[in-house]
C-alpha cells in the first residue's frame, strides 16, 4: 500500500472551492456507478466484448481532470471510462459506445477501449499499453507551438512502464519543455502479474533521470491528487515543462469484467483491505462530512441523482439503434 505520507496536509480545505469538491465527489460517484452498470451489462450479456473497470481508482481521474481546463487534452487507456467521464464525457453516449451504437462517441466504431471526443479534449483511449505516450506529448507540442496555453495529460497504468516508447517521449518532452503530464496509475497489477515482478528499481527515478519533475501521490486521496495536479499543471502551463505523477491505487475488480476468479494472483484479503480501508469515495465523503462541506444526507441525495442519471443513460444506450452496416466503410480516410 501507499507508504509515503499523504501530501494532503499541505492542502488546506480552501484550496478548492466547496462546490468544486462536491462536483469532484459527484464525478467519482458517477464513475463508480457507471462502472457497476458496465459490469451489470456484461453479466446480463447485453454488452459486446469486455471492459476494464476503473472502480477503486476514481480519485485519480477526477483529481487530475479537476485541475484541467475543458480545452486541455487527455489520452486514456483500455481502463479508460473514468478518464473520459472525468474529462466531461456524458454517460449516455459513453454507454452507447460501449454497446456499439450509433449514438456512441465513436459511432460504435471504437467501443470501450477507444472512446474519443474532441469536444472534451479527449484524444482517445488506447488499447496498446503505453501507446498514447507519443500522442499526448504531441498534443503538448502543438499547444506550445500554437501558444494556446493548453496542457496534455497522458494517463497510463504502471504496466506501460515496460514500453520503451514512454522513455523516448519523456526525453522529447523534457528536451523541448512540453506541457505534458504523465500520470502513472499504479494499481499494483499488470493484468495478472504483480508489478514488482515486472518493474525494476525505483519508478519515480525513471522520469527524474530525464530531468522531469516527478511526484508520488496517494491515488486514493482525491484532494491530494487534485492539489498535486494543480501544481504541476500550472507549472506546465507556465512553460516550465513536463511532470510525472505516480499515483498509488488499486483496482477492486478483475483485470476485465470476465476476470472473476482472482485467487491465483492475489488474495481476497488484499482486495478487502483496500476496499475497506482505502476506498477513495469513502475517504472523501468522510472528509467532506467531517469538514462540514456536506452532510451525509446531501451526499445520499447526490448519489441518488447520479444513480438515476446513469440508469437513464443505460436505458438510452440500450434503446439506441446500431449504425447502418454501410457505415463500416466510412471514415477510413478523412
Amino acid at each position, binding site marked *: 500500500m501507499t507508504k509515503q505520507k499523504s501530501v494532503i496536509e499541505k492542502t488546506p480545505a480552501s484550496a478548492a472551492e466547496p462546490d468544486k469538491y462536491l462536483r469532484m465527489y459527484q464525478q467519482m460517484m458517477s464513475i463508480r456507478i457507471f462502472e457497476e452498470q458496465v459490469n451489470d451489462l456484461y453479466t446480463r450479456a447485453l454488452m*459486446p*466484448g*469486455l471492459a476494464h473497470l476503473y472502480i477503486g481508482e476514481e480519485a485519480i481521474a477526477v483529481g487530475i481532470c479537476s485541475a484541467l481546463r475543458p480545452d486541455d487534452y487527455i489520452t486514456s487507456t483500455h481502463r479508460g471510462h473514468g478518464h473520459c467521464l472525468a474529462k466531461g464525457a456524458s454517460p449516455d453516449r459513453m454507454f452507447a459506445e460501449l454497446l*456499439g*451504437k450509433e449514438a*456512441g462517441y*465513436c*459511432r*460504435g*466504431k*471504437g*467501443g*470501450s*477501449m*477507444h472512446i474519443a471526443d474532441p469536444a472534451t479534449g479527449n484524444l482517445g483511449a*488506447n*488499447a*496498446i*499499453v*503505453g*501507446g498514447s505516450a507519443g500522442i499526448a506529448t504531441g498534443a503538448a507540442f502543438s499547444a506550445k507551438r500554437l501558444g494556446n496555453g493548453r496542457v496534455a495529460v497522458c494517463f497510463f497504468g504502471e*504496466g*506501460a*512502464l*515496460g*514500453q*520503451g516508447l514512454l522513455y523516448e517521449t519523456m526525453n522529447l518532452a523534457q528536451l523541448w519543455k512540453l506541457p505534458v503530464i504523465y500520470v502513472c496509475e499504479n494499481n499494483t497489477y*499488470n*493484468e*495478472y*502479474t504483480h508489478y514488482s*515482478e*515486472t*518493474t525494476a528499481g525505483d519508478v519515480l527515478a525513471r522520469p527524474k533521470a530525464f530531468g522531469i519533475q516527478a511526484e508520488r501521490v496517494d491515488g486514493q486521496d482525491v484532494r491530494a491528487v487534485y492539489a498535486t495536479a494543480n501544481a504541476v499543471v500550472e507549472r506546465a502551463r507556465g512553460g516550465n515543462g513536463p511532470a510525472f505523477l505516480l499515483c498509488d491505487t488499486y483496482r477492486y475488480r478483475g483485470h476485465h469484467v470476465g476476470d472473476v476468479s482472482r485467487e*491465483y*494472483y492475489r488474495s481476497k484479503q488484499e482486495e478487502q483491505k483496500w476496499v475497506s480501508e482505502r476506498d477513495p469515495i469513502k475517504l472523501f465523503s468522510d472528509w467532506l462530512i467531517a469538514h462540514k462541506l456536506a452532510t451525509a444526507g446531501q451526499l445520499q441525495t447526490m448519489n441518488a441523482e447520479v444513480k438515476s442519471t446513469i440508469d437513464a443513460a443505460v436505458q438510452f444506450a440500450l434503446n439506441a439503434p*446500431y*449504425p447502418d*452496416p454501410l*457505415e*463500416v*466503410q466510412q471514415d*477510413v480516410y478523412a
Partner: protein
Amino acid sequence: MSTLDVKTAMAPSATERELTLGEAIREALAEEMRRDPRVVLMGEDVAEAGTVFKVLTGLSAEFGTDRVIDTPISEAGFTGLAIGAAMTGLRPVVDIMFGDFIALVMDQMANQAAKVHYMSGGKWKVPLVMRTTLGATRRSAAQHSQSLHAWFSHVPGLKVVLPSTPYDAKGLLKSAIRDENPVVFFEDKMMYKLKGAIPAEEYTIPLGVADIKRSGDDITLVATSSMVQVALGAAKMLQEIGVGAEVIDPRTTWPLDEERLIESVKKTSRAIVIDEGYARYGATAEIASVIAEGAFHYLDQPVKRIGAMHVPIPFSPPLEDVTVPTEQMVFEAARKMCGKS
C-alpha cells in the same frame, strides 16, 4: 507425412483423442519442453495465468517459472532478449498476446532475427518461435483484431505458420520449435476451443506442405487459419447444389507449397483464396498470383480473393460482422464462378 494429410477430416481412431486447438498447442509445448531442456517460454502473463487465452495453463506448474517466464509488457525487449538467447544455446518460444502487437516487434523480428543468419554468413542461428494470434469478431476493436501475417511473410529469413486444426497446430508447432530459424506461429483466437482428433503417438508436420482438407473437382478453395472452417462450411453448402469444392490449406505462408496449390487448381480450373488478413497487399495477393501464374492455362476465370474488408476493424457487432469473410460469402462467390444459380 502426406498419408496424414487428411487425418483431421477423419473420425478419431483408437489411438486418437479429441483435443481443442488450445490443448493441442499446450501439448506440443509440453512435449517439446520435456524433450529439450533448452526450450523456454516467455511472454506476458504466461506463467500462473497461462496466458489470457489460458492456452498455457499448467505449464508453469510442470516446468517451473524458470522455464515459463512472465515478462514485463515489453514486446520489443523480450523478443530481442529471446533472439539473443536463441543465438546462444536456448530455444525460446515467445508469446505476443495479440497479433496486433507484432507492430512493436517488427524491428527485432525483421531487421534482427530474420537477418542474423544471413548477415553472419551462415554462422549464427536464431531458433526462435514467436506465437501470436490473429482474427476478428471477438468485439475487441481495431487494435486487437488484426491478422497481420502478411507483414512477416514478406520478410526473407522468417517462416510463417497458420494452423487451422488442432492436429495441424500440434504437429506444426513441434516442427517450428525444432526448426533452426525464426518461425512466427499465428493462432486464431476464435479457434482455441475448436476440437479435433490428435493421435496418441508423437508426430510432427513439416513446414511447407499444404494440406487438402477436403477433395473436390469443381473449384479450389485455398484457405488459411480461421478461414479453413469457413471454406469447409461453404464446401458443404456447395455440395448441396452439386458443386465439388476442394479445400486446400497452405498451412505455412512461408515456405509456400506452390506446387500443391497449383496442382489443385489445374484440376478444378477455378480458385478462390480466402484469408482473414486484409486482401490488399496481403496473403491472398501472393497466393492468387502464384496460382494465376502457375495454372494460367487451366483457369477459366480469374482467381478470386476474399479477405478482411479494407477497414480498421470496428467494434460494433453489426459492423464488425461484415468485415470478415463468411461461409455465405464464399458460397456465393463459388456458386457464381461455377455458373450455378
